[in-house]
């Protein structure tokens, strides 16, 4: 299987600012997930990229919800593909940083 390249355009920033779009060229093997791609970016390009996940690949924790092409998806079950992919934080939750939003139920937060 030959390596392919996805071009990830990621909305970054915190709640105080207009999001800036940063683009990363992500090489991948067919079958790799969007979460694989985001983790590759952190380990090789930019460790400050913020996103949340817990169970890594099993779609058990439901933490890695974000927007891909404007649709709500789980990063762990969406596959990377050749070409442009646009990734953004959930629009209906308070933005914390980059792709991290406040997703915990209100009564499970430190600051309610």
């Amino acid at each position: 299987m030959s390596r392919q390249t996805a071009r990830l355009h990621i909305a970054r920033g915190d709640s105080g600012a207009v999001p800036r779009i940063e683009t990363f060229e992500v090489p991948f093997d067919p079958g790799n997930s969007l979460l694989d791609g985001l983790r590759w970016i952190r380990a090789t390009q930019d460790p400050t990229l913020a996103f949340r996940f817990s169970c890594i690949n099993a779609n058990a924790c439901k933490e890695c919800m974000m927007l891909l092409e404007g649709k709500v998806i789980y990063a762990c079950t969406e596959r990377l593909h050749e070409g442009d992919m646009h990734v953004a934080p959930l629009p209906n939750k308070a933005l914390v940083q980059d792709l991290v939003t406040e997703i915990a139920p209100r009564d499970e937060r430190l600051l309610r």
Partner: protein
Amino acid sequence: MMRLESDVLVIGAGGAGIFAALAAARDGCRVHLIDRSLIGRGGATVMAQMTVAVALGEQCPDHWEYHLADTLKAGRGLCDAPLSRLLCENAALRIRELDAWKVGWAREDGHLKQALAPGHDRARCVYVDFLNTGPAVSRTLRAQLNRIPAIRRIGDVLITDIVVHEGEAVGAVGLHLLSGEAVALEAKSVIIATGGLTRLYRRNSGSLNMGGDGYALALRAGAELVDMEFVQFFPIGHLAPRMIGMDPIMWDPFRYKLGGRLLNAEGDEFADRYGQAESGDYVLTRDVATYAIFKEVEAGRGSPAGGAYLSFQHVPEADLRNAFGPVIDRLAKNGIDLTRMPVEVAPIAHYHMGGVRVNASMETRVPNLYAAGEAVGGASGANRLSGNALTEAFVFGERAGTVAAARAKSRAASGWNDKAAQPGLDLLNSRSSGLDLPHNSAALVVELQALMADNVGPFRTEGKLLDARQRLEQMQRELGTVPPGGGSHYNMVRLDWLDLRNMLLVAQTVVRAAIERKESRGAHQREDYPGMLPAWELNQVFSYQDGKLGLSRSPPVKAAQ
């Protein structure tokens, strides 16, 4: 800085932490249940695919003493027998409790269904179909939690240090990940329920948050760790083709229900060459299977991705569908048709037998400090029996919550001391300029995982272990003593630093214990010391003082009270 106060502080909101919180609240305590991610969704519990071992006698006659005998046998002489006994004897209470809470254990002909798992002498493991034990248990426990106002649930808080004053635990300090602010949590008793250390390894079946936090917290607080050399590898973790949205240990349930054939590249079943023949049934224990697969790969008979083949091609499609229904469709979406192809599997870091040393009341040697679940060491000795992990979480969680509540009620105040909390808070309030680590912090985690997988896996040699020790010491120096950045929202680099601080300390205990144990036993296999030696029927115990690890040895506690 936020300051919170409770009777019982529970760190970690998986199965053990939730059972602990429920028990403490039942006994009249105000509880704080803290997790670094979401409540009841992280950790290992939610990942459980199938089996929970319990001598219910529903499928066939059984007694907890038979379950205990199997547990002790699997532990290869190193179990702390009172802990193993507690696990087996109290299992039925907790499993019935979950049944009453409508977890949905599989039933057949008016009784709970119990599956036969490797290492058990009879059908003993309850489960929820299909591959749904973990999610069902988590959902059920969350529903119980939400009914109880005395339990305050707080996610997105990473506990970084237990606060100890005059030798006693008085609370903890942590980082609120969303705001980047420090939090002080005062409590009359503290329970560590943070799970194991699977994140130390490249290929693992745990959650991201299982980086051994609780072991490091306990060590720095003055508690001891035991049996740290025994990391359980799950032999048939999914390897290829790439599969998404499914747990890598999902082939275990397939083996329970359908048997399956473990094959090498030549298409031969090979387990019999390593002492355990299979004839259609799933009887291969985890340590033997892991050994057999590694040896076949080493001999050049591995699958293309470096593991073994697992085949269900001999199983009729109707039987597959009957046993796993919707899971067959999820496999199809991943391009996997079990009637036409085998999958590739290989050992994957799965569970830690070692952990915080406690007695059968879950007490560490530090007053007011308890541990529960996988964070505890000793119940499984050198090798854990299939199905005992969730049982341990439930039983030890409930026990820790009960004992910690009684302790909290006997104390008028937490004894919190600002000075004692100061070093931990100073670390969290530190501000250092920019990203002044010499390397990418996420890459350092990846490097640590590669080092542990390549040098401190299930098969060990002195040379590789010594190399690992040297590299860990070097990484420790590179990490420094002050976390990078500070104060900002969800700062991933700072989080990596705090995680590495724990992971490196815990990795050093695994490596050092593995260097010292010059024999092979259960999950610790030394290629340079292949036999199991009676003289090594000893537990290795770590303590930590003035930045130095101390190691001692003692015979296991044998008498089951």
